[in-house]
């Protein structure tokens, strides 16, 4: 197990380094930062000045190594746009995004677990078809469009909820539903498949033969086993939710990391964009690692298989 864990950890670190380097290169390839920073009407000497002040005139490799070394020390640099410490800026917005991701995950689980179980209990019934339809719609509907529909219905027409902002819990309801609905189908399909497999297994048949109540068989005996892959998937989806919040936070003007990412991208604020991309990929890599390790711990076949 230790060798497996170390291997996965090494791989995770490698992925994180590659991602950070890629992000660095791609962001720099997206255009001249100095010109963007200088704004409308700047003179050539202003642009040259900016290039010098921010060290943008140095070779890319030097810029990357300098940035990576500082990053490793926890120094995220200064925002080119807001002119404040990136570290503080990112930390300030992280709770909102984390909260939104967590709420969305809870919402997704609350919707997909019962529906997945029902679909498994009554395969090919109308419930199963309904779940399939919901899943297809959830994956096909662009999230910003779904967001606008919910906004029109619940904020403009019914006036039950605010349109945008992040001042109270009510501001989180619509974004949570939109973001949660986006990942629910994957979980739902996994629960359904897992449950169908487990329900057909011998020990469930034994449990039923023992005369246990149907709910006890399904919820206590079957679900626990069917949930193993779901836990792993949910962990990974949480990372996806953190990243997926860029669109949702922008549409709902929720003051989180995604909104900050949008702002920093529009203003070519490289240090902030870089910090967010790196932070989110680190979290994603961390969650994937945790899921891998949890799976290996739960299912010995995985760690044994990896050793060969």
């Amino acid at each position, binding site marked *: 197990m230790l060798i497996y864990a170390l291997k996965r950890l090494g791989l995770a670190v490698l992925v994180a380094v590659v991602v950070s380097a890629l992000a660095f290169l791609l962001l720099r390839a997206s*255009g*001249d930062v100095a*010109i*963007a920073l200088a*704004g*409308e*009407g*700047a*003179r*050539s000497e*202003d642009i040259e*000045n900016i290039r010098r*002040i921010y060290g943008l005139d140095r070779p890319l490799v030097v810029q990357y190594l300098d940035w990576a070394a500082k990053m490793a020390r926890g120094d995220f640099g200064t925002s080119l*746009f*807001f*002119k*404040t410490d990136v570290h503080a800026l990112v930390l300030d917005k992280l709770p909102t995004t984390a909260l939104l991701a967590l709420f969305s995950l809870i919402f997704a689980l609350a919707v997909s677990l019962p529906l997945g179980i029902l679909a498994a209990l009554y395969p090919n019934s109308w419930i199963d078809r309904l779940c399939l339809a919901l899943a297809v719609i959830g994956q096909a509907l662009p999230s910003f469009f779904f967001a*606008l529909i919910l*906004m*029109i219905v619940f*904020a*403009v027409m019914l*006036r039950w909820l*605010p*349109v*945008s*902002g*992040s*001042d*109270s*819990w*009510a*501001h989180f309801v619509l974004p949570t539903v939109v973001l949660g609905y986006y990942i629910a189908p994957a979980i739902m399909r996994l629960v359904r498949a897992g449950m169908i497999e487990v329900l057909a297994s011998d020990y469930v048949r034994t449990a039923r033969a023992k005369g246990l109540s149907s709910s006890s068989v399904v919820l206590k005996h079957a679900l626990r086993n069917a949930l193993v892959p779901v836990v792993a998937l949910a962990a990974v989806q949480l990372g996806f939710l953190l990243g997926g919040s860029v669109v949702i936070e*922008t*549409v*709902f*003007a929720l*003051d989180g990391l995604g*909104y*900050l990412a*949008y*702002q920093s991208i529009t*203003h*070519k604020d490289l240090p902030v964009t870089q910090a967010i991309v790196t932070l989110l990929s680190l979290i994603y890599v961390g969650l994937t690692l945790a899921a891998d390790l949890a799976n290996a711990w739960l299912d010995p076949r995985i760690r044994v298989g990896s050793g060969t």
Partner: protein
Amino acid sequence: MSRFSTGVLTAVVAAMMAVAPALADKKGNAIRFAYDQVVENVDPFMNNVRIGVIIGQQVWDTLIYRDPKTAEYKGQLATAWKWIDDKTLELDLRKGVKFHNGAEFTADDVVYTLNFVVSPESKVVTRQNVAWIDRAEKIDAYKVRIICKEPFPAAIEYLAGPVVIHPHEYYAKVGPHGMNEKPVGSGPYRITEHSVGKYVRMERNPDYFKDSPKPQPKIEKVEIRFIPDRQTQVAEMMAGGADMIMNVALDQATQMKAVPTLQVVSGETMRIVFLHLDSREATTAPQLRDLKVRQAIMHAIDRESMVKQIVGQGARVLHTVCFPPQFGCSDEGAPRYAYDPAKAKQLLAEAGFKDGFDIDLYAYRERNQTEAMIGYLRAVGIRANLRFMQYAAMREANRAGKAAMLHQTWGSFSVNDVSASTPVYYKFGPDDISRDPEVRDFLQRGDSQVDPAVRKEAYRKALALIAERAYSLPLYSLTTYYVANKDLVFIAYPDEIPRFWEMSYK
């Protein structure tokens, strides 16, 4: 019902009651204004976004004030001013003006602010707004001199626009960073809270000096919220979560006219639109070297129809590259290129392009207008391909000489003087892609002479030459649409600055 579920229900109801908007609207005599751009620093010298200009005008005062209705200059923090020589402006300052922190306004504030912002260490973002200043000198507590680097007659216009005055002791202590966190000005509104990237909350300044040419504010509170998504802004207006938005697209504005609680107001803006052509030797489209080809482009586009059908109410067709009310802007003596596709084709044939040619058309905003132009150009045989991108990227292409035809727009930073518009594109600056020394010399003369008549004549000649030699096709001014609470009384000015201090509810 169990005690638990009763508790949950009570909590939910209580929380819902707590979800009152941060500011009340008409009843609270407040305006909730939603805007899509974020301001990085509200200090007017430290941002180059429109919303920064809007906030700056509410919170700070300038030495001189330009009446938006009459374009007449009035004293604001200064009471009188005169040119002592070509480069030196002397100003008498107003007594009895107080900053929001209680500090008295004196010559020290003017001298410190101006000398600070011109110093390279200040790292001001809007360098072009202060680059003309050499230094400021105190004569006595209420008299200062501003010395320009070169003769700069447009100084008055700049002092009435982007050049605000900060309280010197506070600014020296906290710097631009502190000014952003806890802004202190002397204007009709003071900022009570600035949550960076989220909102700016302001309150009426009860001690605003009575002699200010800006009227005493009537609206008690103003909240500027940053909502990046236009659809969300519209939804906020319809749900009653905002009282005013601007820059609404023509089609959306038309639809919102049907909402009984809202009013839609359109107004011309200072932003001018023109088709910029690279006619230099090294141009990527050598066809544009030929005057006839450029003239053909002038005749190919139906500007009148574009204004009527897609630009919107209030826009006007331009014949020279400047905004008509700007000092020095004139189309006298400039040729008029009427919409005449047959003539355009004939000119192309004469130039040896009977079958037309292919060209890339660069654009960054109002894509529908670019597409309309592409349609007109194709009709005469010029096969234009759209290259749509971000402003910064387009400017990069322009400056690198990669873009030969650009759908350009320019807002002059709300400065009502031609020196802030035409010279940017024709005085051998980085954006000049025609590089005509004759034009440059006329513009230079207009920029540096003090005599208004001499300036006007120099600009007139430059503008006529640009039109005659067809370096660019002047298109039209843009309009902006405001959507507001139907009871809000306000005027849409061309400089796109909503003046909250003038507004009130019916």
